[in-house]
């Protein structure tokens, strides 16, 4: 059974002139456990919206998303919240660390949303991303690269089965991009987390064995099925 599968996913937004504008229309998409996939596509083309639907943050107009055998559409909001806190890790382009919380507190907060609290695990993960000596620093006291490493640690602290990374290297220089990507991919591999990363940067996409072109996947005017690894 596929770890993640999408069927006839469709979402439209109402444009300012009142017309319905389709943003996402993915006929089929699936991936296996532990796979790492990059979706490439230009900015503003609906990739983030797609990730939000995979995470259960947005509800599609039609179609369904199944993760690990569970249909998001059949879940109520509370169940989807629980799914996100325990099974999904989310990484943003702008990191979105909580500014009033130190590095370690950002990790502990993510744990507490999953009903857990384990300082040792949080410190161990900070150590893995090379920031144990910055555990009490606030995000504003860290460099951009360091902030993204904390964001990666926060997304992985609950050992999620699926990590969704939305342009995670968009704000990083090449050195930090390579370092963050390596860290993200190795941690996902080590902990058996599937990874979907969206980016418009060919250099980032090129590092992935499995790649999907968003403009082919998102068939606003057509239809195409994508099964990762079997393209």
């Amino acid at each position: 059974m596929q770890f993640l599968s999408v069927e006839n996913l469709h979402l439209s937004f109402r444009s300012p002139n009142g017309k319905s504008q389709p943003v996402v229309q993915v006929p089929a998409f699936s991936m296996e456990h532990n796979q790492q996939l990059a979706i490439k596509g230009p900015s503003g083309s609906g990739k983030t919206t797609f990730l939000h639907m995979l995470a259960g943050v947005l509800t599609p107009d039609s179609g369904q998303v199944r993760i690990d055998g569970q249909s998001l559409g059949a879940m109520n909001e509370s169940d989807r919240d629980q799914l996100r806190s325990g099974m999904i890790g989310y990484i943003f382009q702008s990191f979105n660390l909580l500014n009033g919380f130190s590095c370690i507190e950002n990790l502990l907060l993510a744990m507490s949303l999953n009903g857990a609290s384990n300082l040792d695990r949080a410190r161990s993960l900070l150590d893995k991303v090379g920031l144990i000596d910055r555990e009490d620093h606030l995000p504003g006291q860290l460099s951009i690269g360091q902030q993204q490493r904390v964001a990666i640690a926060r997304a992985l602290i609950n050992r999620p089965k699926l990590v969704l990374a939305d342009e995670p290297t968009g704000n990083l220089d090449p050195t930090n991009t390579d370092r963050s990507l390596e860290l993200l991919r190795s941690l996902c591999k080590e902990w058996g987390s599937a990874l979907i990363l969206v980016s418009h940067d060919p250099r980032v996409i090129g590092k992935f064995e499995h790649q999907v072109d968003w403009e082919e996947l998102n068939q606003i005017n057509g239809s195409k099925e994508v099964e990762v690894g079997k393209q």
Partner: protein
Amino acid sequence: MENSKGSMAAISVSLKLATRALRQNLLSTLVAVFTVSLSGGLFLGAWKTKQSVKLAFAHSAGGFDAVLGARGSQLQLVLNALFHLENSPGNLDWEQYETIRSHPGVSEAYPFALGDNYLGYRLVGTMPELFLNHQWKSGTNYQVRSPGRIFSESAKEALVGAEVARELGLQLGDRFHPYHGLEYNPDRKHNDIYLVVGILEPTGTPTDQVIWIPLRGVQTMEGHDPEEANSISGVLLNLKGSSGLALDVKYNKQGDRATLAWPVPAILSSFFNRFAWLERSVAALALLMALVGGLIILATLRSTMHERRREFAVLRCMGASRAVVTGSILWQSILLSAFGALGSWIIYFLLSMAVSSLIHLQIGVGMNLPMLDGMALLTGGGILMLGLVSAWFPARKLYRSSLQESLNPHG
């Protein structure tokens, strides 16, 4: 069990988010807390001060039921005779004192005479029996600080109130020249010299603000009109049973030579009723400030909500429920209000202390220390309610808000 554990974790996360938000917006937090504290403190202070002053005045009447004085205002008589405020409305003949003293409905009658001061503190002439027999509070007589004593009826001796002794540094054996009139005027010094023979223990009543001398001393003070030597300013009375009614008819309704100020508590109430407009104004001001406090909490929450909109969206992406993020707004408001309530009590306490010492300094009436009683707790509860009402609308808006807008999804 799982559910309750989850709820506790959600509450804990909400609370943590709220405390951080308050800390991150420290200036607006402090302004909101200060405004709410001030409005609550003023409201409570105005209310409680009125109550305490009423109570303090009622307890400071010196244990007398009534005052007989010259024809005039009952309130002026009470304020003049018992609180040593205002001028005397006039004099009574000694015969009038003897008449009322012998009335079967009168249990105690002490004549007093006014007209002089020492450095602004009133000299009151009376009889030594006042300090020997009268209970100024139920079961409590006046106490003279050892080794002092009460003045002799026929000597130029003074028994000094505790507050006067403290303020002027008067001690046993000190001598002083009284000054004519109730206000201090250095040009109106009498030649008479009085010897301090005793200092009263503090009572927390206007008695502490007075220098007591023999009645004859005031009546025969050098420079006073000899024709007034047999007159007094009034008589302090305690009455038996319901004799007040009969005396009221006799002096106030049928007579035209004297006024009986009776019953003292009712007259004091009429005094406070004069300030009802002030009380209403302060209450209106406090309510207005409470409204401002509520609006400031609302503005603070809305402003931080605007700043935190993205933070809330991120938290939702991380799995925080709507209840957690909405709860953080409610907690923020509860904490603001709770600090506001605490601040109100502190301001109320300080305000009451200031008013208390001012009143004690001016007229010697001692007020009870402010306490966290029912009204204070009710005000604190009201502030919490105000905070919750203020938080309701932003919290509701947040609860219903779309994650999509906050996350700028067209990525």
